[in-house]
């Protein structure tokens, strides 16, 4: 269940319009600055795929000048919560099917 936050810089004069567009998207919560041309955005989705899809939609909004991610957590209580599951070398052959992992394990008995 990914939960991420961003600072969103709108194009000049488009803060309100952008805020409305973001607020209308499911999974988005927006907090506009009271005295500056920026917004805070928190996205709350139920899967990595949904999160990626939402982010792509956000990035596609024409009134965004810059989108800066400041926080990202995948709830560790959920199965996909361990990033190592995606990055550990036991998974690497899955990520990189064409790459044979280097022979690393010692076979001898030392202890």
């Amino acid at each position, binding site marked *: *269940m*990914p*939960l*991420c*936050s*961003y*600072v969103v810089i709108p194009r000049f004069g488009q803060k309100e319009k952008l805020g409305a567009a973001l607020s209308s998207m499911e999974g988005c*919560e927006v*907090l*506009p*600055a*009271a*005295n*500056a041309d*920026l917004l*805070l*955005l*928190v996205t*709350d989705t139920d899967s*990595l795929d949904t999160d990626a899809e939402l982010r792509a939609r956000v990035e596609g909004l024409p009134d965004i000048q810059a989108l*800066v*991610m*400041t*926080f*990202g*957590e*995948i*709830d*560790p209580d959920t199965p996909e*919560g*361990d*990033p*190592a*599951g*995606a*990055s*550990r*070398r036991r998974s*690497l052959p899955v*990520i*990189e099917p*064409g*790459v044979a*992992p*280097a022979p*690393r*394990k*010692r*076979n*001898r*008995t*030392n*202890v």
Partner: protein
Amino acid sequence: MNVVDRREFLRRTAFMSAASAAATMVPEVAFGAEWLDGELQQDVDWRKAPCRFCGTGCGLLIGLSGGRAVAVRGDPESPVNRGLCCVKGYHSVQALYGRDRIRNAMVRRNGRLVEVPLQEALDLVAQRLRETMDEHGKDAVSIYGSGQWTIPDGYVASKLFKGAIGTNNVEANARLCMASAVTGFMSSFGLDEPMGCYEDIDHADVFVLWGNNMAEMHPILFSRMLERKRQNPRVRIIDLATRTTRTSYAADKSLLFTPQTDLALANAICNEIVRNQWEDHDFIREHVAFKSGKTGLGYGLEEKASFADEAHDADWEEYLEFLADYEPDAVAELIGIPADEIRYLASLYGDPARKVVSFWCMGVNQHTRGTWMNNLIYNIHLLVGKISEPGNGPFSLTGQPSACGTVREVGTLTHALPHGTVTQKEAREHAAEIWQVPVENIPDRPTHDTVQMFRALDRGEIRFMWIQVTNPMVSLPHLNRYREGALKEDRFIVVSDVYPTPTTDVADVVLPSAMWIEREGMFGNSERRTQHWDQLVEPPGDCMSDTWQLIEVARRLGYRELFPWSEETHIEEIWNEYTRFHDNPKHRMAPYDELRARPGVIWPFVDGEETKWRYNPEYDPAARGESGGGDEHAEGGESRGTSGHEAPTGHDAGDTRHRRVRNFYGKPDHRAWIWLRPYEPPAESPDDEYPFWLNTGRVVEHWHTGSMTRRIPVLHRAMPRAYAEVNAEDAREMGIRDGQRIRLVSRRGSVELEARIDFRGQPTRGQVFVPFFDEGILINEVTLDAYCPISREPDYKKCAVRIERVG
């Protein structure tokens, strides 16, 4: 804390992180949501700690709740980052909580690592250490640490191995990243580490970045630089590099040079300065000596390569003669930068009305002539006197959080002691007195630098190696050879770490380490700032700090009286013992209580004041009058001849520059040394068989070998795997599309990975760039283990490869 639904708590934390970031962009920003700076903060205990990652040393505030680190903010009280954070800093605490965290000790049985009680593993480490020494001698055992070692970790390691056991087989991975900076400082100034501080950024008019992609590698300092430019449009940022990066896009000028020719470029700048008589003649006459050294040093590729430089006196006329070979028009083609641009660079350095800071890091240091390149940048600043004053100075950045604090200051390299070197009798006596060991215990000769240490492991001269806080089975150059060496029979490898890595894969014993804020510690950053943090959370399972692991093994070896400290107060006791080594105005460290109270303290710390600009009597008590005399334990005292500082003639009589008073007390002659260092070609250049340069480095999302940052979901997703940046025209000629798999092949090995074209960085024609964070794409199986013979630091930036299309 109030019971807050975990999801709601995370949501608020996410907003808080974003609000903190927004406040760094617009300091007075408000959101009209009371809970943002009210209710949430009441639930969270915010405690200070330096960032775990790069050498910038940002001050963080760690949000604690329910015994867990839950959030991070930049510390607005920290003079380093002033409340800013980069993407790694914001997510740093998540690196504590990866699912595959090593929680228990493991030993290898029947080829497999199996969990054992920690005490049993520590017994085994001590037993094998003792047996190896008994059977093969004390120089058959070694320890290999890191610039991520805390200061107490490194201090205890050095005391145990050099003082108690009696071997100089102590090295750290900082050899791979800043050894050239050390030898550069030592040969030019006689003392290590920058003379200035980050406050220089607030005063400079020109920033020259030498092979330094600060936008990704030091993003906070880069932000400060951009802020300086925003406030003062006259500021200029010059990016000197071999590939176009995010730094290039933000710079006023991006100049791309041919790899290795930065040596010629620096000399060409000096040529142009003296041709125009822009040098500060009074400064040179009063504060500079000229030296020449050996040339044709080789590249350290021989099995037991050794080299010792010699300083010979030179003078101004010899220096002019030396520079004559570097007239900009004559070297422009070699360098790949038009002569007019070289002249422009020289004019920036030479203009008395502009303050100039030069920044560099791995591009200069990871270089087969890394020491020379450091010397040459100092030469430029010394010629024009722009050094050791606010806004003027050469500034060597480090890559690791305590490369300076632990490796350089504690001296966790084979030749070093906490003060001075092992070759200096008085330094050994000083160490023996503080350590309370017989001075004969400390050998008077260095043994192996890092590359040679792993070669010795391969040859069997070293049989036992304890590796802490580093991942050499990803980071060593020419990796195939060193992995095979570690896997040989009768080698015993102990690894202390927090996650499984290719290095734990070769271990006989794995010790579970307490990480960062799970224990108390100190780091020392690039600007001589020492930063302390308390233990903020409990480590998982049997995890134990590396400091205490070393103490436990030392006691098992019979050295309890040398390591008598209590578990509750040992960090303070170690600090108090260690700082006795530096109890002089040139290096005095802050007392423990000061460190605990402040967001870091810059040394020398004299009479309650930080010394921000060394060698300048206006700021540095040690530079005032009687305190000079040369550092008794500094290197570079080999030359006692004339200083060769005859005044340059022909200077402009109308020069209105103020007289700069300095005391370069690191050298016996109280002068900084300008070295005559020529251009020499790299160890390996592209040819018909291997027609491309390979350059390696980092990306903003990942810390070094990725063992921590790849377990942070956001960072992993943002940059999940390594890739090869290929020049667009090269790709077009070879029929390579963006995203296509290619194979990079060198004389040492090959890797397969995706080609990226016009991606984050764009190499010039004939070059490829690959980041090294990905243990699944071991680019160091391709790199070359050539190094600077003076610093023994490998060159990860230049070797020859060919590109093959796959499929």
